[in-house]
C-alpha cells in the first residue's frame, strides 16, 4: 500500500511545517471563499448578448410587469469562475470513493452523457409529431425490454420520475386493482427498517401505515407480518435486498402469504443493483417494484437529482399502469395518451406527470445496459456484493457488525457498539472520514440499528482503493477504542467548512438572499 508515497516526497529532512497563519485574502490555496451571485452582480452587466427589441404594441392584456425583478448582472467569465469555485467545494464520486449505503454511488460513464445530448434525444419535444419521434419511442421500448427481462416481470410503467414517484405509481396501481375488485383495503404493512419514502408514499396514496418489526438477524419478522395480514391490508412494502444490506430469505413464503390474504406485494427496488442479472424479482412473487435508474443503472445523482423510477408490474397490476402507454403500431410505436384509444384490458389509474418520463435518464440507462450487456450487469452485481463483503470481513473485528457472521449483499452495515465508552459517536466517526479524504457512509439509517453506519462501495472501486479505505477505517476504529479521540473532536477540520449550526438554521430560517440595505423590502 502506498499511502506513504506522497508524504515522503514533501517531508524532506529539515522541513518544518509553518504555523497555521490566517491568509490575507481569506482564501486558502485552492479553496476560495465565494460570495453569492447577488453579492457579485451589478446593473449594466450581462452574460448574454441579446438584442433590445422594440415592440410597437404588446398583447399582454395590461399584465405587464411594473417593477424590476431584482436579478443581478454578471458577465460570462464571472459566472464561470463563480460556479467553478463552488464546484470545488463538493465531494464527488469522480474524485473519490463515496460509500453512501442505499444511494449506490457508482461510476457514471461519460458515454452516457454524450448519448443523452444527441440532438435527436436532448432536443426533442415531447409533443412533436409522432412521425418525428419514432427513434425515441423505440429507445423507450428497448429499455422497457431490458427492465422487464432483467426483472422477469410482464410490464413496466415508465413515467415515474424517481424512486418515491415509482412507489406512488405502484401503490396507485394497487389501489386501482383493489377498487376494481370492489374491495376497500386501507392498510399497508411497512417494515420498520424501511426507507422514509415507503411510509410517506403510503400515506400520500391515502393508506394508513402499519409497521412490522425486524428480527434480531436484520430480516423482517415474517411471522409478525403474517399475523398482521387481513382483509383490510392492501399491500406490503418490502425492500429486497433490504436496507440492512441483507437478502430477505423468506421472501417467497411472504409473497405467498400476502397473495393468499388478497393483498399485493410492493418491492422497493432501490437495492436491485445487488442482484441484477442473477435473481429476477418476478420469480420472488412481487407485484410491483420501482427501479432507481439513478442507482442501479448509473444515471448521475447530480447533487440530488434528477432520477427516474420506472415500475415493473405483475400481470395482476399491469392493466392499471398509468397513461401514457407505449404501444407498437405498424412497424413503429405510438403513445396512447387517451382512454378512448386504450389497448384491450387497459384500465389506467391516471397520469403521474405531464409527459412520458425521464427520457434523459432513459438514454443514459440504456447506454449503460448496452455497454455492460447481460454478462456485465451480472458481473457488476457480483463485484458490488464481493466488495461489500470484503469490507465487512476486513472491518468486523474492529468495528461491530450487528447481524452475525453471514455474508451481506451489496452493503456492509455496522452499528456503534464498538464505540461504546469511547465518547466518539457515529457522527464524529463519519465526520472524521472527511478529513481522511472520504465521503462519510450513510449514518443513522436504517433505524433498526443503533448508530447505524451503512457502507456501500459499489462495483466501481479497485482492490487498491478498497484496501486503502479499509486501512483508514481500521486505524480510525483502533484509535477511537484506544482513547485517542483528538481526530474525532469537532471533525472535520480540513473541509471547506467545519460543522455547521443546523439548530440556528432551523430556528430562524434564512432561505433566500435579501438585499442588505432593504432588509424588510417586500419583493
Amino acid at each position, binding site marked *: 500500500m502506498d499511502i506513504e508515497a506522497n508524504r515522503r516526497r514533501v517531508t524532506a529532512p529539515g522541513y518544518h511545517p509553518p504555523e497555521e497563519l490566517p491568509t490575507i485574502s481569506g482564501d486558502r490555496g485552492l479553496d476560495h471563499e465565494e460570495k453569492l451571485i447577488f453579492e457579485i452582480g451589478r446593473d449594466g452587466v450581462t452574460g448574454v448578448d441579446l438584442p433590445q427589441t422594440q415592440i410597437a404594441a404588446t398583447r399582454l392584456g395590461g399584465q405587464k410587469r411594473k417593477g424590476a425583478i431584482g436579478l443581478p448582472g454578471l458577465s460570462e467569465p464571472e459566472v464561470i469562475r463563480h460556479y467553478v469555485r463552488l464546484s470545488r467545494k463538493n465531494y464527488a464520486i469522480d474524485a473519490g470513493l463515496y460509500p453512501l449505503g442505499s444511494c449506490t454511488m457508482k461510476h457514471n460513464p461519460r458515454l452516457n452523457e454524450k448519448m443523452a445530448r444527441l440532438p435527436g434525444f436532448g432536443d426533442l419535444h415531447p409533443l412533436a409529431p409522432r412521425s418525428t419521434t419514432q427513434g425515441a419511442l423505440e429507445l423507450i421500448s428497448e429499455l422497457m425490454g431490458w427492465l422487464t427481462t432483467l426483472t422477469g416481470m410482464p410490464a413496466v410503467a415508465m413515467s415515474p*420520475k424517481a424512486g418515491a414517484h415509482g412507489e406512488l405509481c405502484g401503490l396507485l396501481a394497487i389501489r386501482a386493482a383493489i377498487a376494481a375488485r370492489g374491495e376497500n383495503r386501507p392498510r399497508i404493512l411497512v417494515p420498520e427498517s424501511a426507507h422514509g419514502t415507503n411510509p410517506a408514499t403510503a400515506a400520500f396514496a391515502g393508506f394508513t401505515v402499519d409497521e412490522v418489526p425486524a428480527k434480531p438477524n436484520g430480516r423482517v419478522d415474517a411471522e409478525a407480518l403474517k399475523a398482521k395480514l387481513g382483509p383490510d391490508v392492501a399491500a406490503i412494502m418490502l425492500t429486497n435486498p433490504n436496507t440492512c444490506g441483507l437478502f430477505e430469505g423468506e421472501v417467497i413464503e411472504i409473497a405467498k402469504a400476502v397473495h393468499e390474504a388478497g393483498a399485493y406485494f410492493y418491492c422497493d427496488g432501490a437495492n436491485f443493483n445487488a442482484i441484477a442479472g442473477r435473481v429476477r424479482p418476478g420469480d420472488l412473487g412481487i407485484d410491483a417494484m420501482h427501479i432507481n435508474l439513478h442507482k442501479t443503472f448509473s444515471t448521475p445523482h447530480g447533487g440530488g437529482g434528477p432520477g427516474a423510477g420506472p415500475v415493473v408490474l405483475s400481470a395482476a397490476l399491469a392493466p392499471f399502469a398509468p397513461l401514457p402507454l407505449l404501444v407498437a403500431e405498424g412497424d413503429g410505436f405510438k403513445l396512447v395518451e387517451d382512454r378512448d384509444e386504450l389497448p384491450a384490458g387497459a384500465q389506467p389509474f391516471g397520469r403521474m406527470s405531464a409527459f412520458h418520463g425521464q427520457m434523459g435518464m432513459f438514454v443514459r440507462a440504456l447506454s449503460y445496459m448496452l455497454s455492460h450487456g447481460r454478462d456485465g450487469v451480472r458481473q457488476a452485481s457480483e463485484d458490488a456484493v464481493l466488495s461489500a463483503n470484503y469490507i465487512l470481513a476486513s472491518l468486523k473485528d474492529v468495528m461491530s457488525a450487528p447481524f452475525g457472521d453471514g455474508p451481506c449483499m451489496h452493503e456492509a452495515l455496522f452499528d456503534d457498539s464498538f464505540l461504546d465508552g469511547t465518547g466518539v459517536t457515529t457522527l464524529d466517526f463519519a465526520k472524521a472520514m472527511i478529513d481522511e479524504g472520504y465521503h462519510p457512509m450513510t449514518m443513522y439509517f436504517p433505524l433498526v440499528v443503533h448508530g447505524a453506519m451503512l457502507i456501500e462501495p459499489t462495483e466501481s472501486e479497485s482492490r487498491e482503493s478498497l484496501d486503502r479505505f479499509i486501512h483508514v477505517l481500521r486505524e480510525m476504529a483502533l484509535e477511537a477504542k484506544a482513547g485517542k479521540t483528538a481526530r474525532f473532536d469537532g471533525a472535520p477540520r480540513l473541509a471547506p467548512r467545519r460543522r455547521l449550526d443546523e439548530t440556528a438554521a432551523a430556528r430562524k430560517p434564512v432561505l433566500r438572499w435579501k438585499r442588505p440595505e432593504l432588509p424588510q423590502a417586500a419583493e
Partner: protein
Amino acid sequence: MRYLPLSSDDRSAMLKKIGAPGIDALFADVPQAAVVPLSVFNLPDTQGELEVDRALSKLAARNVAAGAGPFFCGAGAYKHHVPSAVDHLIQRSEFLTSYTPYQPEIAQGTLQYLFEFQTQVALLTGMEVANASLYDGSTATAEAVMMAQRLTRRGKAILSGGLHPHYAETVETVAGLQGVIARAPVTPGSAEDLIALIDDETACVVVQSPDVFGLIRNLRPIAEAAHAKGALLIAVVTEIVSLGLLESPGAQGADIVAAEGQSIGNGLNFGGPYVGLFATREKFLRQMPGRLTGETADIEGRRGYVLTLSTREQHIRREKATSNICTNSGLCTLAFTIHLSLLGEEGFTRLARLNHAKASALADRLCAIAGVELVTPTFFNEFTLKLPKPAAPLVDALANKGVIAGVPASRLLPHDKSAANLLIVAATETCTDDDIAAFAGALKEVL
C-alpha cells in the same frame, strides 16, 4: 468490462480474505429456486463504446430535433437557446457526480447554488420562499393542491379550464384522493368564470397564466374571491420566461406558485428531466413539500449553507411528511441557476421581449392567411390559431414539409370536438424570419 476495476486475481484474493469458496457463497441467502443462469436473459452481451455509440446514434437520427428546422411546439415545453457555459459547468464532476448535500462540510457547492436558486425563484415568482425543486411543473401543481388541502383542511380544488390538461390529469390522479377535483369548462381564448365556482368547501383555485392556449389571465380578482372564502390561489406557470415581461403571480395575490423551469437552462429531452419550481408565502412554510437550503454558520463563524426544516420530509417525518419526494431535480436546478445568472435582469427582460416580439410577428403573418384566425387576443410567446380544417392532419402534412408547426389542441383535448381545428403555436428567440416565412408558406400550401 471497461467500467469494472476488479481483475479475476483480485476477485480470488478477495474471496479468500472473506473465506468464501466462490461468489455463489455470498448469495447463499437467496432461495435456490430464484437463482437463474445468464442464459435466461435474452439480451446482448458487453459492447464497446463504439458499438453502443453507433446503436444509439442510429436511434437518435430517426428523430427530428427541434433545432433541425422551423419549429413551433410549446404547450408546456419550450425550445430556447441555452448558453454553452451552462452545459460545460453542469458536467463538472463535482456537480454531476455528487449526491444530495447531506454532508454540508463537503457539499457547500451544491448547497450554495440551491440557495441562489431558491432566491431566484422567489424573485421571479414574487413570492417569499421557494424550495430546492420538485420533479416538474405538473407534479409541483399536484403538490401545491395537496398543500392547500392540508392548509385549509378542505378537499375541493377548482382547476381552470386553461390549466394544461396533462397537469389537470396529474392533479386528479394524486390530489383526487384527498378531495373533489372540479375542472372548469375549457374556453379557448377567453377566461371562464372561476369566481362563481368558489364555495366554502374550496381549498384552492388553480389558474395557469399564460394558459395552455397562451392567453394571459388576470389573477387578481380570482385571488380576492378565493381569499374571501378562505381558499388559496395556486398560480401555475409553464413558460417561466413570461415572467420577464408579465406581472409576477405573487404581486397578483397568489398563495402558491407551481411552475415548470425547463425553459431556463434545460433542454427539451422529450419530456424530462425538467425542473418543478415551487414557491409560497413564508407563513405556509411548514406545509411546503421538498428540500430547503438555509443559511447558517460553521463553528468558526464562517457563513455556510445546510439543508434545513427537514422535519417536514420523509426521511424524518415518514408517514407524516408533507410529501414523499426524495430525489428531486438537482442538476436541472443548477442549469436553471447558471442560465439565469448569465441572463441577469437585463438579459432576462430582453429575452422575454424578444420572445413576445417573435410570437407577435408570427401571429400577424399567419393570421394574414385566409381562413386562419387568432383565438387568443392576449399572449406572451404562444398563441392559439383556429384553422379552417382539423389541425392534427395539417401538422403531419407540415412535418412532411419540414415545418414542426405546433401542438394540435386535439392532442391534449381529444374529447373536445370544438378543439379539433385549434393549433397551439409557440415562437421563442430561436425563431428566425426565415422560419416564420417557411411556416407561412407551407401553411398556405397545405390549407
